[in-house]
């Protein structure tokens, strides 16, 4: 089990730690609900040191990445980034990630902790003989995510010299060693992710907490992202489902002339039409919170349609919410469903994403 460079700080803050993607990470400090609310109303700070960081450089870097990833990085200017996906030949999702362009010949990728090894192996296998260098820098960086509407005022007070980039942008500074700021997040609120050398990240985390950012665990990170309908890799995304089925078509540029790995499969899928879609599901009655793995049935409660890939209580809505891959004829907004929880059936319906 890997330990975050912030491990001892978490313990001193009274965090409850649990395994996540091979890392022992804080799930919560004071409680998921109060941490969730801190991010929606003020500002919270998450340890995301488990995330992976790759750097791709060289004259052919942009072109090579464009043949590997679904989004079109020609849309990026220096200092800009976007959400994109790495697919297998069948169009299944190996990983979803953020790609940032420092310069035309230098890119920064932030990938999921659970997929670092797969991503790196896959990308290495497709590396051209020359012109592109791929480095896994995951071991060098610790990282924190600062999220919430008060992000900008807190950061401007704490570090006025380190100006945040625009939305989805990236900027690197030399302050306490290297520090990279990316204006993204996984909560639907304003915020940024800060990457710094592992021996320096504790310093940043301490300063952020001392400035009023509420320490938040992965529990709140999960409820925050689910309310916004953001998929979690390994739960809502996997190699058996395509980004089109996951409702991520916006980040897939099928019209890229040179194509990308998985492109043909997706073009065929688009032509034939989807058979299933990742639907957002909301309970319609007082019921236990939804959980990953619960069976979703037709409204008559007889025919099983699928399983929840994510589920929780929405702290913002006060009701159970979740997502599931459902046959397209049962995935339209307003479709009545039943969810089986400990052998009892509860009424639910397909709703529009985001939930909140």
């Amino acid at each position: 089990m890997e330990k975050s460079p912030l491990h001892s700080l978490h313990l001193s803050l009274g965090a409850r730690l649990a395994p996540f993607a091979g890392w022992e990470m804080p799930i919560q400090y004071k409680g998921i609900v109060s941490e969730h609310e801190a991010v929606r109303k003020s500002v919270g700070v998450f340890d995301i040191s488990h995330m992976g960081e790759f750097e791709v450089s060289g004259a052919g870097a942009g072109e090579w990445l464009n043949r590997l990833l679904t989004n079109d990085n020609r849309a990026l200017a220096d200092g800009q980034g976007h959400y994109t996906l790495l697919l297998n030949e069948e169009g299944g999702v190996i990983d979803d990630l953020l790609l940032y362009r420092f310069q035309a010949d230098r890119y920064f990728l932030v990938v999921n902790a659970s997929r670092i090894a797969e991503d790196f192996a896959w990308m290495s296998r497709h590396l051209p003989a020359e012109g592109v260098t791929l480095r896994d820098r995951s071991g060098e960086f610790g990282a924190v995510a600062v999220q919430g509407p008060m992000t900008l005022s807190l950061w401007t007070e704490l570090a006025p010299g380190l100006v945040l980039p625009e939305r989805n942008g990236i900027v690197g500074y030399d302050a306490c060693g290297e520090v990279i700021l990316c204006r993204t997040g996984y909560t639907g609120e304003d915020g940024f992710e800060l990457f710094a050398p592992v021996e320096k990240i504790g310093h940043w985390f301490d300063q952020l907490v001392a400035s009023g950012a509420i320490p938040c665990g992965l529990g709140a990170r999960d409820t925050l992202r689910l309310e916004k309908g953001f998929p979690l890799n390994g739960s809502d995304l996997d190699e058996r489902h395509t980004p089109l089925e996951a409702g991520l078509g916006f980040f897939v540029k099928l019209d890229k002339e040179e194509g990308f790995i998985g492109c043909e499969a997706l073009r065929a899928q688009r032509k034939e039409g989807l058979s299933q879609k990742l639907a957002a599901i909301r309970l319609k009655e007082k019921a236990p919170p939804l959980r990953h793995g619960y069976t979703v049935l037709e409204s008559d409660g007889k025919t099983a349609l699928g399983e929840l890939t994510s589920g929780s209580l929405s702290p913002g809505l006060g009701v159970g919410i979740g997502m599931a891959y459902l046959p397209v004829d049962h995935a339209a907004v307003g479709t009545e469903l039943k969810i089986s929880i400990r052998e009892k059936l509860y009424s639910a319906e397909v709703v529009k994403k985001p939930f909140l």
Partner: protein
Amino acid sequence: MPRETRPGRGARRQKALISENRICHETIIRFVEPDSIQSVNAPDHLHFSESHEWVDATAPEAASVGISDHAQEELTDVVYLELPTVGRVVSKGEAFAVIESVKAANDIYSPVSGEIVEVNSDLAESPEAINEDPYGVGWMVKIKLSDPAELDALMTGTSYREHLS
């Protein structure tokens, strides 16, 4: 409740250091004190199980059952409680209820055997009462004991506190 923090002096000093882009100081200034070890709240008139349920057997007709202060603190944010129906007969150690926090669902085990004669239906609307007052309004069921001698195998408040420490 958010922990009290003191951003004043340290934050300004850090700001100055960063804005001047000097080499940053290595000392980590610790404004946030770790939680003081709080003494576990476990009244001595109650009996406690190893799975953190309590029994109040002071009333002659039926014993009240709930979960300990320690258990509610571990769970945090109780959002749902599924209670058994009145009339159900439970054995000691049998799962008779499900308690859910935002993160997970957990079984609650009966610390004693007997018939469930009453359930706290108020908790359906206000499960947070279990967090707020686990030994009072957060009681869950009343059980008519079939074997009062089972109480002797449970812990007193004092021994439960020792068990946790």
